[in-house]
């Protein structure tokens, strides 16, 4: 029987090999594969951010499409109106999303508990309707990136030369690598954040708001920080997504189904409140989508039903089930937040 340490080492080795393979995909794989995996990675980034938000900070937002949308629109504005490089636009997209998070938090944080969810959704709707009024970027019908934008993007000519591929394949490779780096960075940032003092405070709040307050943690400020940081990540991801798509419309950029519903199901099915959860969830989602791709919206029905079943019978998702069965823990936050048995005496009286 292998002990926990050995298992962890083996898994870690698998992880490193896996990441290396993922980096090599544009070199050794087909272009279709690159595009497919790009989709998976961006969903993973969104899911990781939503997991931090809902699973760790208890902020169940149904308005994440607002950040994807403004990220995308900010990037388009940089390229079309200011003539900047799309990569600069991505960064701007992140900051604009973070800026939007400030008034959004100011408003939505007034809504207690469950109403926060619909409050964020309403704000996302408002933002969508406002962007539909922005005539310079096509208003309600949207607009496209100027021809050639992605071909001349910073780094694309070099990749083209290096790999000996077409410009569009090179730009696919670049956005793919960016998505991969972003996904790994989000994972790492999430891990270190949750093990930091702030992250500890966050988990304390999740367990008991009152108690956390009494030891000097300010729940509102901490949650506001998480809200803003995940808005940044989500906004960057949105901008990146729409470099690939090259066309933006209010409906597509602020789609609650594509950028929030899928993301919620991925996280819930994979395991909300666990770091590996979104990874497991996105793999599951991808397989399901491929398996049921011939049956129209059936996969959505299946996805929703599985989400419900998971919430009813296995609240920590597939990863939680796996972890409970095998005792294997990856990216565990346990050292810093030991699980204690509730004091039986505390329940009496």
């Amino acid at each position, binding site marked *: 029987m292998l002990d926990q340490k050995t298992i962890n080492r083996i898994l870690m080795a698998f992880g490193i090999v896996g990441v290396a393979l993922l980096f090599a995909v544009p070199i050794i794989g087909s272009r279709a594969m690159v595009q497919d995996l790009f989709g998976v990675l961006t969903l993973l980034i969104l899911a990781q951010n939503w997991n931090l938000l809902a699973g760790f900070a208890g902020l169940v937002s149904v308005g994440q499409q607002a950040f994807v949308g403004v990220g995308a629109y900010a990037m388009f504005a940089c390229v079309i109106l200011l003539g900047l490089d799309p990569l600069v636009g991505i960064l701007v997209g992140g900051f604009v999303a973070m800026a939007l998070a400030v008034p959004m938090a100011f408003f939505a944080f007034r809504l207690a508990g469950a109403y926060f969810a619909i409050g964020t959704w309403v704000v996302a709707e408002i933002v969508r309707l406002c962007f539909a009024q922005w005539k310079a970027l096509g208003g309600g019908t949207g607009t496209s990136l100027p021809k050639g934008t992605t071909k001349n993007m910073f780094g694309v000519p070099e990749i083209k030369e290096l790999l000996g591929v077409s410009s569009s394949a090179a730009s696919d490779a670049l956005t793919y690598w960016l998505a991969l780096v972003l996904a790994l960075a989000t994972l790492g940032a999430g891990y270190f954040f949750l093990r930091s003092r702030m992250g500890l405070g966050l988990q304390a709040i999740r367990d008991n708001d009152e108690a956390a307050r009494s030891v000097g943690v300010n729940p509102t400020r901490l949650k506001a920080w998480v809200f803003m940081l995940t808005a940044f990540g989500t906004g960057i991801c949105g901008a990146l997504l729409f470099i690939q798509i090259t066309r933006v419309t209010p409906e597509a950029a602020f789609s609650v189904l594509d950028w929030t519903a899928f993301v919620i199901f991925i996280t819930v099915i994979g395991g909300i409140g666990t770091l590996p959860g979104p990874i497991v969830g996105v793999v599951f989602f991808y397989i399901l989508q491929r398996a049921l791709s011939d049956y129209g919206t059936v996969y959505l029905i299946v996805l929703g039903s599985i989400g419900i079943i998971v919430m009813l019978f296995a609240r920590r998702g597939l990863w939680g089930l796996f972890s409970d069965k095998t005792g294997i823990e990856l990216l565990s936050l346990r050292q810093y937040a030991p699980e204690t*048995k*509730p004091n*039986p*005496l505390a*329940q*009496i*009286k």
Partner: protein
Amino acid sequence: MTETLLSTHDLTAHYGDFKALFGVDIEVNKGETIAIIGANGAGKSTLMRAITGLLPHAPDAIRFKGESIGALSAPEVLDRGIAMVPEGRRLFPSLTVEENLLIGAHSRTGNGYWTLESVYDIVPILRERKDHPATALSGGQQQMVAIGRALMSNPEALLCDEISLGLAPVVIKEIYASFPKIKESGASVIVVEQDIGQAMKVADRVYCMMEGRVTLQGTPEELSRDDIHNAYFGVSS
């Protein structure tokens, strides 16, 4: 006149891994008033929770009118005629005094001694305040609403959990003044009390508990102060 209404047999109960009751045997006869006394943490409230089905335990450990009720859920137990005045009163703040009383009779079908009128007769002030929100009353009045609410189901056994907790002595006295009436209605009463003096006054028999066990039982006349002191604190004085 010694027909057993409610009894426990070697009753044990747990909170998770923590064992709170170690084989408790008590017996309540029809029409009898029983007091259960003991210090904080002696297991008195746990016993109440176990009887009313809020805590799991062996099915045969509790019998009521000859039926094993240990495996039943709380509503089923109460449906059989055991009503509880919960610790801390737990009145419904959205309901008026009268509605709080009426909800006690929610599932009642037949007639019985206790109606709104008979409850108001023993506590006339409630009639005056019947349209006030229940939580706007004084502590003692609220306690009477809680007792009245339990009586409205015309129980054969009434369980009162720490009804004098946090109340002034004069108020406690007023509350216990209603007990002869309750007795008259034919109900058996179990009071859980920390106020030993009050308990001895109303009870036909007394059980004293310590650390999850019954350490002493008898009629108030049989028990000396020293006996009770020992049973209560577990040390000789």
